[in-house]
Each structure stands twice: as C-alpha cells, then as structure tokens.
C-alpha cells in the first residue's frame, strides 16, 4: 500500500534531520544558536507531551504547566539539596516522573470525567493551586524569586548538554510515536473522535484518558527537568499559565495530532521570537515586535489551518492521490474533515 512507502519516506527525512542536528553545533556560527536549539528541543518535548492530550485524546488542558513545573522543581530542589552530580540529576528526573505520574493519575481521575470546557477549566484551577503552593512553600521554593543551583559539571559544556537534550528528544519522539501508532494509541484517537461510541465498543475510556494524561504528564516532567538544568535556576514562572500556553501554541502551530508538528511549532515560535526581538535592536519599527509575533499566529491559522505539519501532510496526500489515481477521484484518501476535533 501507498502508506508504507510514505512511512519509509518519512523515516528517510527523519534520519536526515537527525544527522543535520548532530552536526549542527559544529557548523553553527554561534553558541547562542546551540543554546536556542537546546531550548527548542526542550519545548518540543513539552509540546509533544501536550499533543498526546490535545491531538490524540482530544483533551484540552489548561494546566499542563503543573507537570512541567513539578519536573523543574524536583530537579532543582534535589540538585541544590544534594550534590550536583549526574547521578542525582538522573535520580531527580526519575523522581520527578514518578511524582508527576502520581499527580496526573489523581488529577486525571478527578477531572477526566468532565466534558471539554469543564475539564479545561478544572485543570486551570488545579494548576493554579499548584502555582500557589510553589509561591507559598517558600522555605523550599523561595517563592516567586526562585533560586539558582549548580548543574552537574558535564552540563557546563553546552554542546554536551545539547546532545543530551537531543537524545532525550529523539527517544521521547520515538517512544511517543510508537505509543500513538500502537493499538492503544488508536483507541485514544477513537476516544477523541467519539467517546461514547468507544465505550460501547467495550473500551474503558476513562482508563485510556488517564493513561494519556499520565504519559503526557511524565514526559512534560522530563522537559521540566531539562529546562531547570538549562537555566540552573527555577522560580514560580515554571508553573505559570504562560508555559501551558506555550505548549498549546507550539502544538497548534505545528499541527495537532501529528507529533512532528509540536517540534516544528516549538522551532517556529522560539526562532521567530529570537529573531524578531533581535530585529528590534537594528530597526526601530521592530520595537513593537510582539505585534509581528501575534500576526504570525494569525497568519498560521489562515494559511495553515491544520497547523504547519498537518496542512502540509494533507496537501501531500491530496497531491499524491491526484497523481496516482487520476481516474478514480472518488476513491478517497483519508482526508480529515474540517470538523472540530475537540469534542
């Protein structure tokens, strides 16, 4: 079938990109770009985890920052309390993941029975409460000022850290990709499309939603840990609505339900932000660069209604089906209809 060929094409592209990324720090003209790319990778992981919720299970969460924040705080606190060794760091990632897994399990059980808007608002409330805890538990978190800590010495080398994060990204991507293309992932998609019908096929949908929520939470925690390391600093902003919105925007810009999309989205947003704000130094009209940044979102919706990857993918399929079967246009390709995907 045509599908298989597509997959292999996809893998080839995938490989080329990986190789390019491996050589990137050596050819890039500055370390800033390396750091920027590291940042892109970290947010890619976060956005991918969000895509599991939004794109594959159809859950809009306004509270994703809490998982990210838990990961970041766990790593920061453990590293500052104990030694700044690699061992502690790895332990902190695990601890963060276990802890978020537990939290997202509870939150999931509590919230996932609700319908879209209500669910979204409840997650907003719960993550709001986590933010308050981070603010109030000042002996540990130092509140909104936050605190700095030492990263493991290996990570002082930004290139090493770049590769470390890249490996995390690739692994997370491969694991998540398998996750969503597995039978379990297909059930998640079914839940997104029509939860009641999924139930009547004999699937316990709540379980699937909780699983999705846990997976998303755990992966978000990983990105939070990496984020903390990249800054060697943590404050309450890691729990803030801004983080959730970033994840959300990156996912949507790239294309929901595509997994590659969030990576592209994260790249687009970080790079646009970086260069637009840089332009402000040279051209006074870019002083208000945020206007252009906002317009970017608007243009993406207008020209890439399904997100960048989603739209390109659909265009590709249409083009291919036209090429391969000009005689039988009615033999349809799986074109996702412009129907709403949230409910």
């Amino acid at each position, binding site marked *: 079938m045509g599908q298989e060929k597509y997959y292999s094409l996809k893998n080839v592209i995938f490989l080329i990109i990986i190789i390019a990324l491996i050589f990137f720090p050596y050819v890039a003209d500055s370390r800033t770009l390396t750091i920027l790319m590291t940042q892109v990778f970290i947010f890619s992981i976060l956005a991918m985890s969000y895509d599991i919720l939004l794109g594959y299970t159809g859950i809009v969460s306004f509270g994703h920052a809490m998982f990210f924040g838990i990961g970041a705080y766990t790593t920061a606190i453990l590293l500052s309390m104990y030694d700044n060794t690699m061992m502690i760091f790895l332990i902190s990632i695990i601890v963060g993941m276990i802890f978020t897994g537990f939290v997202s399990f509870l939150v999931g059980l509590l919230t996932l029975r609700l319908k879209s808007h209500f669910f979204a608002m409840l997650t907003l409330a719960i993550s709001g409460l986590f933010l308050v805890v981070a603010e109030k538990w000042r002996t540990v978190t130092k509140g909104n000022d936050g605190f700095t800590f030492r990263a493991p010495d290996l990570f002082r080398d930004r290139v090493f850290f770049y590769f470390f994060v890249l490996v995390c990204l690739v692994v997370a991507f491969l694991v998540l990709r398998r996750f969503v293309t597995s039978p379990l992932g297909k059930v998640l998609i079914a839940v997104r499309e029509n939860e009641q019908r999924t139930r009547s096929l004999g699937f316990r949908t709540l379980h699937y939603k909780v699983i999705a929520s846990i997976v998303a939470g755990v992966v978000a925690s990983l990105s939070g840990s990496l984020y903390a390391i990249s800054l060697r600093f943590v404050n309450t902003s890691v729990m803030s609505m801004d983080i959730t919105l970033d994840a959300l925007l990156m996912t949507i810009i790239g294309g929901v339900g595509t997994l590659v999309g969030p990576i592209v989205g994260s790249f687009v947003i970080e790079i646009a932000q970086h260069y637009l704000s840089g332009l402000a130094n040279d051209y006074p009209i870019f002083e208000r660069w945020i206007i252009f940044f906002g317009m970017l979102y608007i243009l993406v919706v207008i020209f890439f209604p399904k997100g960048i990857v989603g739209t390109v993918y659909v265009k590709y399929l*249409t083009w291919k*089906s*036209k090429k391969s079967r000009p005689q039988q*246009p*009615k033999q*349809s390709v799986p074109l996702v209809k412009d129907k709403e995907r949230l409910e």
Partner: protein
Amino acid sequence: MNSLLKLDQLQTHIGQYHILQGIQFEAIEGEVSVLLGRNGAGKTTTLKTIIGLTPASHGKVMFEGQEITKRKTYDIANLGIGYVPEDQGIFKGLTVEENMKVAIRKETDEVCEKQAYILELFPDLKKFWKKAGGHLSGGQKQMLSMARAFVNDSKLLLIDEPSKGLAPIVVEKVMEAITEMKKKTTIILVEQNFIMASRIGDTYTLIDDGKTVHSGSMAELIGDEELKRKYLGIG
C-alpha cells in the same frame, strides 16, 4: 404546467470529489417529483445543491425563472424553499417548542393554524413539547423535522427520506401531511419506500452515480417491471 425548478446539467464537487456529474431535472408546479436511486447515488447531494449547501460547480439551478445557483443558502430558503434533511437536522439542545420557534419565519394566524394541524397529526410532538430535541425517539425527530418544514409557507419543499424509521401507521400520516402540503406547495421527495413514493409521486427521476438516468411519470414506472428490476431491485 409551469416549471418551478429546473436543474440543468448540474455538477457538484465536494472537496476533490466529483459527486454530481450531470443532473437533469424539472419540477412542475403543484406536483410531487420523486428522486430514486441507490445508496450513494447522489440524491441527497442533489437536494443540498438546490438549497445551496453544496454549491454546484457547473450547470444551473433555475427557480421561478431566475438563476439561484450561486446564491447563499438563507437567500434561497427565503425565496420560499424548505428542506427536510435526511438526518432531520434537529437542534438537539433546544426543546421541541424552541425548534419550532426558530423555524417559524413570521407568526401569522395561518402559521398557528398549520401548527395546530400538524400537532394534531403528530400528537407525540404536543406531548413532548418541552422536551429537548436530542431526547426524542428517532421517529419523533422525523416528525418534528416534517412539522418544522410544514408550518412555513413554502413554494417548494425538498424532503429527504421522510418515512425512514417510521412505523407504518405514521408513514400514512406523513403521506397525509404531504398530501395536505401538496395543495399549495411543490415537492421534491427522496424516498426509498417505493409504496409511499408510488402513491404520492407524480413523476420520478432516477439517479445513478451522480447522473440522471431516467425520468418520467410515476404511472409509467409502476407499469414498467423491467425498469423497476433494473434500477430498484424490485419486482
């Protein structure tokens, strides 16, 4: 023998798919024209193209001598064309009463009378006047959808499979309603229930694979065993 609606070489694309590939059809004022054809033949798409939901890519839709091909759905509806979709188009969150209210264009005495008549015919609707549309039974939804189209003064009504899912005795009532409407309204009917179609239809048009393949008077079709077997699988 005025022609009220005329479809001329109508073609419709949905996305990249060429669904209607040449529909030729004419509705005579005061008659009931029946569209027949197998599943996926393009009957529903034909009706939707008339009302403007899936605009035609080629060809013309003429209504009372003017071309309405490119008009907006609400414009077309306001010319006096009603539509009963195959999935009933009930507003699930609104009550039966509210469904009727949204549908009624102007609350004249005549409309009230008609409403009373149709509620008499389908007493279930009266019984569940305050119930949410989404909670009605399949047949009740069908009745409500008919009632909504019935209360307004339409010159032309497009009805898509009204008898589907109705108890035989209710099918009779629907036929009664259609006969009542027929006094003032021209009707285009898509119907799989051949008994019903043959009883109330004046003319028929057979659609297959998005094209008109046959048309004529209903009496002819009833007599033509050959045609019935070939296209309708009956006889």
